[in-house]
């Protein structure tokens, strides 16, 4: 809320609906200049965010290269979800910039996110409970639809082929994630672990270049975790998807990630390979050594 108010303070068009305002600003500061440090898929530059007195993110720099699996770990309330919310435009940072591919934003335009090649899942499930599993996944192709609603009603123009295409792609992803059997079930009626997987399917069907996963394993039983790990690695290897992974299960994190960034109280206290991070004294103090219950406690 705070961040939305801030928008109205800066810009005069306060009467506009939030996302019209977002599109108008679309704060693309620098256009298409290449990043000095070479190719990056995602970059955060001095991003800060606070809620009233609570500092969720403090001066965060982060750079993720294409094809990388980057884990974000840290105790509850460290600011991990806030980071993903800033990247996906759900929260607007107080300061700093977010770079996605070649574009640099002060506020990421949520409505255009998928066109920038970004998809995400949510820590708290955000499925469409009243749609079937297949329809949930098909809705991940909504951004591709060019047909009008009249074309869809009368089944003319592009609409039939779009429908077939969305359905086929959804079926393919469902098969990939072993969800074919529950395709006709309403998403809201599935057990928690399967819902998590449907969320992954809905994100993957958009064929994102960058995938943001907020605790995909939280609440899963051990065998489900093993499967989910397999899917995430496959998405990364087979589709070359860059992945930002928030996860409390250190075993999973060490196994999957190329690089790990460690957060504590809104600050990034370490960033490096799994080996480097494991050996870092600050990390051991703040997280690994001390609060063992945090490791897979996982606030949901």
């Amino acid at each position: 809320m705070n961040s939305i108010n801030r928008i109205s303070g800066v810009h005069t068009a306060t009467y506009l609906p939030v996302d019209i305002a977002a599109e108008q600003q679309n704060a693309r500061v620098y256009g298409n200049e290449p990043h000095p440090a070479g190719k990056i898929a995602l970059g955060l530059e001095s991003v800060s965010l606070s809620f009233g007195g609570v500092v969720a993110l403090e001066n965060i720099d982060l750079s993720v290269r294409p094809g990388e699996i980057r884990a974000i770990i840290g105790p509850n309330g460290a600011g991990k979800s806030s980071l993903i919310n800033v990247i996906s435009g759900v929260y607007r940072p107080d300061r700093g910039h977010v770079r996605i591919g070649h574009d640099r934003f002060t506020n990421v335009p949520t409505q255009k996110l998928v066109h920038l090649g970004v998809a995400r899942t949510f820590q708290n499930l955000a499925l469409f409970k009243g749609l079937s599993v297949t329809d949930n996944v098909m809705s991940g192709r909504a951004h591709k639809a060019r047909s009008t609603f009249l074309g869809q009603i009368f089944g003319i123009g592009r609409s039939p082929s779009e429908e077939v295409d969305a359905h086929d792609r959804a079926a393919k992803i469902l098969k990939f994630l072993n969800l074919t059997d529950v395709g006709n079930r309403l998403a809201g009626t599935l057990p928690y672990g399967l819902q998590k997987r449907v969320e992954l399917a809905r994100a993957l069907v958009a064929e994102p270049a960058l995938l943001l996963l907020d605790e995909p394993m939280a609440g899963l039983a051990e065998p489900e975790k093993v499967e989910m790990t397999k899917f995430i690695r496959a998405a990364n290897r087979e589709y070359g998807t860059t992945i930002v992974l928030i996860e409390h299960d250190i075993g999973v994190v060490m196994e999957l990630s190329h690089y790990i960034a460690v957060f504590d109280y809104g600050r990034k206290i370490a960033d490096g390979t799994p080996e480097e991070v494991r050996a870092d004294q600050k990390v051991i103090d703040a997280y690994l050594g001390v609060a063992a219950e945090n490791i897979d406690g996982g606030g949901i």
Partner: protein
Amino acid sequence: MTIATLEAIPTSYTPRWLTPVLLLGIAYLIIPLVGTSYLFEAILLPFLALSLAGVGLNILTGYAGQVSLGSAAFLAVGAFAAYNFNLRIDGLPILGSIFLSGVVAAAIGIVFGLPSLRLRGFYLAVSTLAAQFFVQWALTKFSWFSNNSASGVIDAPPLSIAGVEFNSAVGRYLFSLTIVAVLTFLAYRLVLSQTGRNFIAVRDNETAARIIGVPVLKTKLIAFGVSSFVIGIAGVLWAFAYLRTVEPAGFNLDRSFQILFIIIIGGLASIRGAFFGAALLVVTPLILSRVGSFLLGDFFDSGVLDMSQRIVLGGLIILFLILEPDGLVSFWDRIRKRTTTRLLRQ
């Protein structure tokens, strides 16, 4: 708010089209032969118009999740727009007037839908009251809309298509039935399309919908437009086929609530639900009034009877919603499932 959840699952072993086709067969071939004029005038004509209004509101509220208390306003817009198109454009066929009145209702619906881009839930519902009061006020205030008649009363023009008259009770029934059948079919196509999925996505999780690239603003405005289009045409049927004489005061907040009750009782996010709900809300008062005047008519005047009927109806609605929060549709589907399994077991 509960949602009829069964429609996404194939519950029956019969093909989907079979029941509607059978029902239409009965409606077209058998009912006109056996129906009395009481059946048409008092039951089927209001049932058809209200069902269609329910289908329209269900698109907006049941599917797209935008609560509206302004349905009666769009009924009125449809009725008065069709009246004026018919009156003022020479040679425009009645179906042309009806279609254009739907377009006018859609345009006004989109305008009154603009607050939905900012407001949600209860606040949006309150803002749709603006439509309700504004339309009634405008139709009463500017007598042009009713061709300068006293207190805004309008009389329906004769209904004829290509020289065929539809002015008898059966004729008006067939006229309404056809329009309701066609629009219901199109509404059904819509809710199963990509746009229909977008409706539910926006309803169930607006943030997630925006993030995956559902055009949220456009989707809401389409819902308002299509819903008002359908409700507007329901208004024409209400005025031209059912009552034949209407005034703005008839399209009051009570009527808006009636349509909202129809979809809540019938089942939100269900096309069939609108028909179930309308049937219940049209037939129950008739039964109650018969029973009431039969049992108590000697002791109480009609005002008391009327009031007690409303209380009983309200009580029944509350009781029903407690027992079956997902509406008549899910009640019906459960019964059907149970009987099918029992039949299969034998």
